[in-house]
């Protein structure tokens, strides 16, 4: 492999903590962008920071890079406290959403910049810088474009130059801020696969920020779901999708429907009707009484012919490829949920359909319990249909 100098030592991968974030808080004026965030990142991991805008994910990335400094808490690189080290001392590779390529330098000069500015003793010779730049351009599949200027490249090419430039300094960690955010969907998917490949080849501990859950779920070893300056959940793609630990995560990752319900004597009630589910059947069952929110995935439902269940009139129905998406009005239009049925189901407008969620979760209503400290205000009251594909 020609890029042996670039490859991170894999021997300690997965054991050593590369990055430790301890109770970090960041205030901008009086606005708290991050509150008490703690996170461990293992050596060689590919981590996604996922959240809606304003969730603090970019702030966290900038704190790790040293482009901003925490108000409180500590950031450790290995065992070393780096909280107040400058960005130069941290030796991180940072890739910006808008590339931030130096427009007056050629592609090769851009890639070699980090080596050129090293102090005399550690600076490679000119020929060596050139050689490494062309090796990196080879790695990012841009050989032959060495003498182009950034404005002569497409968006995807620019971002690949930016990544090569960040890799050139042999960074301890690689940080990417919405790396594909400014690109169109096709290029995005391509680059995503390609980034995974590069990561597997070079083994850099990598943290990237995204608001695109598909990107996070497909690419990352672990996903850090953030909301309103806090970490909601950390886990693999399957974990955050299958066992979301808060209404926010349930609603944010994948598609979901929710209903405001009441638990009495272990039975679940919607308005004045029992819906044939018992609280003990919840995937996270903890609640024995009180107000709660019932969450389920549109495809985790079974249509029933009789007995207790949820019944509603079809408000809208559309066929998407092999399935049918049905919007149901329940309780005379007070609630609206989305369920997924086989495409063969007629689901005529105005007809009644009864169903029961087969997999579902209960979360205590906010204020009804202190068990759920995370604010859920960002969660839309109506189950807004999400258009992202659901990985399964």
């Amino acid at each position, binding site marked *: 492999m020609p890029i042996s100098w670039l490859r991170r030592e894999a021997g300690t991968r997965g054991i050593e903590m590369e990055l430790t974030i301890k109770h970090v808080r960041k205030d901008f004026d009086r606005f708290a962008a991050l509150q008490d965030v703690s996170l461990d990142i293992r050596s060689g991991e590919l981590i996604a920071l996922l959240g809606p805008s304003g969730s603090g994910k970019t702030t966290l990335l900038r704190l790790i*890079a*040293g*482009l901003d400094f925490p108000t409180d808490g500590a950031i450790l690189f290995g065992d070393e406290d780096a909280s107040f080290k*400058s*960005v*130069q001392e941290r*030796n*991180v*590779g*940072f890739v*910006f959403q*808008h*590339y*931030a*390529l*130096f*427009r*007056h330098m050629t592609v090769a000069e851009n890639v070699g*910049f*980090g080596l050129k*500015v*090293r102090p005399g003793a550690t600076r490679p010779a000119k020929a060596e810088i050139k050689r490494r730049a062309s090796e990196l351009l080879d790695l990012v599949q841009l050989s032959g474009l060495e003498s182009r*200027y*950034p*404005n002569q490249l497409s968006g995807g090419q620019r971002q690949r130059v*930016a990544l090569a*430039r*960040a890799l*050139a*300094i042999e960074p301890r960690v690689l940080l990417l801020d919405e790396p594909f955010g400014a690109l169109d969907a096709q290029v995005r998917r391509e680059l995503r696969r390609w980034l995974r490949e590069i990561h597997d080849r070079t083994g850099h501990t990598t943290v990237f920020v995204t608001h695109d859950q598909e990107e996070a779920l497909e690419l990352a070893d672990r996903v850090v779901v953030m909301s309103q300056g806090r970490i909601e959940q950390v886990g693999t793609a399957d974990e955050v999708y299958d066992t979301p630990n808060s209404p926010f995560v349930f609603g944010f990752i994948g598609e979901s429907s929710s209903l405001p319900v009441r638990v009495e004597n272990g039975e679940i009630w919607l308005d004045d009707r029992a819906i044939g589910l018992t609280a003990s059947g919840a995937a996270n069952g903890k609640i024995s009484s009180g107000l709660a929110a019932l969450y389920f995935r549109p495809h985790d439902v079974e249509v029933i012919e009789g007995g207790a269940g949820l019944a509603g009139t079809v408000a809208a129905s559309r066929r998407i490829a092999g399935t049918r998406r049905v919007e149901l009005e329940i309780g005379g239009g007070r609630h609206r949920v989305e369920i997924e049925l086989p495409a063969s189901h007629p689901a005529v407008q105005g007809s009644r359909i009864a169903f029961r969620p087969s997999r579902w979760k209960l979360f205590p209503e906010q204020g009804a319990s202190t068990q759920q400290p995370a604010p859920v205000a960002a969660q839309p009251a109506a189950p807004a249909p999400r258009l992202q594909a659901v990985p399964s």
Partner: protein
Amino acid sequence: MVETTMANDNIAARKAAPSPVTETRPVRVLLITLTIVALLLFLLAPLLAVFAQAFSMGIGPMLATFQDPDAIAAIKLTLLVAAIAVPCNLVFGVAAAWCIAKFRFPGRAMLISLIDLPFSVSPVVAGLVYVLLLGPFTPIGAWFLQDFGVRIIFAVPGVVLATIFVTFPFIARELIPLMQDQGTGDEEAALSLGASGWQTFFYVTLPNVKWALLYGVLLCNARAMGEFGAVAVISGKLRGETVTMPLQIELYYQEFRALAQVSAFTMAAVLACLALVTLLIKTWLEWRYADQLAATRSGH
């Protein structure tokens, strides 16, 4: 084939249809004519008049102007003042633009207004303020005179100071909008790649604004050589000592000798030539580095 024909038809149709933002033909002709007439009348005609007057008595009297020690001193002083004032404002302007565009700090809005002050204050007033502040009978002026033997007012340092004051905004004004537009992304990238503050400045910040900087310097230089009001007040108009070219032109013009009139217009012609050369340099640079210029503008 069919598709190609259709595409061609489309293009033809588009060419025929007027663009929604264009004007009708008479309006366009009117606007262009107005502009050209205005340019001829107010810019080109006076310029030609200056040269015509300079040549009015033949080439001999014109060349005689350059024998006059006062004229030579004025030309030298003008070049000297520009050679000091422009580099000073280059440093001040870059520093001011850099801190305004790249940082948020209390008093920033005030600093922006202060940079514009020389534009809004009459140069004569500016000159007077310096006289009142630094004249030989003021504490500061007296201190310089006694302890260092340096006269500021009615001497060359005063002329330089006044010129720096008047030309201060040119470079900063040229740089601030561009630097604000470019933001701090490139700088952050450079820092994250291990560059020091100075390396970032010289390798990234400065090259990103070099064209705007060049325009600023050219404008600043043109104004530095042409400044009249502030310099007139502060220099005391001592012939051969503190008189710059614009002042020398006025002094010649006020003598009622025919030869002096020629000298006045000759000097004016020299000054105009300096301005024309500046413009030519700018145009040539734009033509020579058109591709680089385009690269700098379409940054992202």
